[in-house]
């Protein structure tokens, strides 16, 4: 893909130290559903249902998936704002899965979060100085040169006027507020920053600015990111690796380039086909190969059996409905959970009969045609 060439060179030197900064194994979060006067548990929202991944020092892991697939829950679990139902989270080799609020407190310096909604993530009654200075106060850290000076340095770092120290959030635009949120997250020089859809509430024209800011700060401060997004376009240029989530599971996990060029999971392929193509000459063919996913995401309260994507997958067969595909490495550091992957050998070649009632014939799956004649 030609428009990618520049950043490919930029990303080849992505650091890949062996010891992961964050290690997640079989992470589960079920929210119980309580009903009636007695508050009996009648079911559970299976928001995150057994996911495993590593985040390496200095890299950016992008996490994508449709709304409601559990991305935010995953983010809140690894920052331990939520208590996991099961699984294991290790940060720098230390098990933090069930640390109490008090035990977690010192670690909060190292793990920070950037929030989705710049209008609700800043307390409207506090000045910017108070907001960005809160990490120092809460962690009992006295920075060199005092809190005020550090806050002003942070404001300049994220591209805001340090003189605006005494202003209130309502005096700033969405993009500026998000920069304030970023300044707050970076105050304590964290090791890991989890950004939950950091730009999806912003104007498209401002999104790139904020994403670029995050990218620059990473180079400058040596940060490690987990960036959550609901489509593949936003994180395209900043991610080193990408995890694709569907209904509480990771369905594909790969380095960025292979994922964009040779997606293996049908869901990833569908997500990719929805990414807008900037080149007008190629737009035509891209439109032809757009995969329209039919129907809504099923409820995480009673997810489909077998492969959770089988109700919407045009390749689904009997085995997809009965057996859950494991997340296996089908190419070097390219893991996918699918019985009949794209761009890889079929895992269950014997099962070819399409599942009755699947949208097989409706999904317009035209071969992605780089060399196809335009028009």
């Amino acid at each position: 893909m030609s428009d990618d060439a520049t950043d490919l060179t930029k990303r080849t030197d992505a650091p890949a130290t062996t010891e992961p900064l964050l290690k997640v194994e079989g992470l589960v979060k079920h929210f119980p559903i309580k009903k009636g006067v007695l508050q009996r548990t009648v079911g559970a929202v299976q928001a995150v249902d057994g996911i495993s991944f590593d985040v390496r020092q200095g890299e950016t892991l992008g996490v994508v998936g449709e709304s409601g697939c559990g991305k935010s829950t995953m983010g809140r679990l690894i920052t331990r704002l939520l208590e996991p139902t099961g699984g294991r989270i290790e940060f720098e080799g230390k098990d933090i899965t069930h640390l109490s609020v008090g035990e977690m407190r010192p670690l909060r310096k190292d793990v920070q979060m950037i929030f989705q909604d710049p209008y609700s993530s800043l307390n409207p009654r506090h000045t910017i100085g108070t907001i960005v200075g809160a990490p120092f106060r809460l962690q009992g850290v006295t920075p060199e040169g005092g809190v005020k000076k550090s806050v002003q340095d942070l404001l300049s770092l994220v591209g805001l006027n340090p003189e605006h120290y005494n202003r209130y959030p309502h005096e700033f635009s969405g993009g500026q507020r998000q920069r304030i949120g970023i300044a707050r997250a970076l105050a304590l020089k964290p090791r890991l920053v989890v950004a939950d859809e950091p730009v999806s509430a912003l104007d498209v024209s401002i999104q790139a600015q904020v994403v670029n800011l995050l990218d620059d700060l990473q180079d400058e401060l040596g940060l490690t990111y987990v960036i959550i997004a609901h489509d593949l376009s936003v994180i395209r240029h900043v991610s080193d690796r990408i995890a694709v989530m569907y209904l509480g599971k990771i369905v594909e996990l790969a380095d960025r380039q292979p994922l964009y060029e040779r997606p293996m999971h049908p869901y990833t392929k569908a997500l990719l086909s929805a990414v807008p193509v900037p080149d007008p000459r190629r737009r035509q063919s891209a439109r032809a190969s757009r995969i329209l996913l039919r129907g809504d995401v099923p409820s995480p309260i009673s997810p489909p059996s077998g492969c959770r994507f089988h109700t919407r997958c045009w390749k689904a067969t009997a085995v997809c409905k009965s057996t859950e595909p494991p997340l296996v490495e089908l190419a070097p550091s390219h893991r996918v959970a699918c019985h009949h992957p794209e761009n890889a050998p079929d895992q269950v070649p014997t099962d070819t009969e399409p599942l009755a009632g699947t949208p097989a014939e409706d999904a317009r799956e035209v071969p992605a045609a780089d060399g196809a004649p335009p028009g």
Partner: protein
Amino acid sequence: MTAPIETTSASAEAQPEAVLAGAGRSQIEGRSLGQIAWTRFKRDKAAVAGGIVVVCLVLMAALAKPIQAVFDLDPNKFNQDLVDPALQAPKGPWGGMSWEHPLGVDPGFGRDLLARVIEGSWVSLLVAVGATLVSVLIGVILGVVAGYYGGWVDSVVSRLMDTFLAFPLLLFAISLSASVQDGFWGLTGLPLRIAVLIFVIGFFAWPYIGRIVRAQTMSLREREFVEASRSLGARGPFIIFRELMPNLVAPILVYATLLIPTNILFEAALSFLGVGIAPPQASWGGMLTDAADRYEADLQYMFVPGLAIFITVLAFNLLGDGLRDALDPRSK
């Protein structure tokens, strides 16, 4: 006029970029939400009028004794010569109005009504404000705790509120006032009466504040800035006092202001029923009882405490509504 200030506030809200672009401006200090609310409040004529009346009333109540001394107004001085014993009504037209007694005198003993209205004002306001403070204290503590912690704590507090709201308050107030003996809590006479009224009214009005605070807390708790605070290691008390409380001050102020007139009416009603402030102490409710007994002979008497109550309640309500519009324009 206020016009130039208004334009600044409008542009500051509508186009933050524009304000920031003009960074060369010498004044860098931000306009807090309080300052913006004040500008908005000043525009509301009815609220400003209500506020001025409230300030005057509070001054009158606080300075009741000095005022009475300076103008030689004695609320308990009998002027039997001004009353016609046969008619049981003040001599002269308009309920005995004169330069010496601008609001007339009472038909029974010829006491000066202006003096008695002033005397009644401090009793009324003291009871109403005191009871409101009691309600706010209980309501805010329980409302915040229930709203923030949720779960069984919330269930318990919510049931408690329902119970208090379903309680036959008037019966309780009557029986309590009747059964409280002199010398209770080391208090006697008037202070005891006032204390009982503050306790009874305040203790039963807290669920109104409590419900509002609980609902506001529940919605604030879901805002991401609370989560941001938690992600920095903040705990419950810090979040409640530093993050939630600053956002709750406005609604608490508004509903406290709106609770005061309700409590004034309640105090008047209790005194009217004879279980509030006891004669000879002047109180607005007590004056009304007195007037109701004699309305055939002296109809005007009734209007004096009636108007005092009406003006006070109206002024507090106008002020409260204005505060609500200014502080929380979305809540309407």
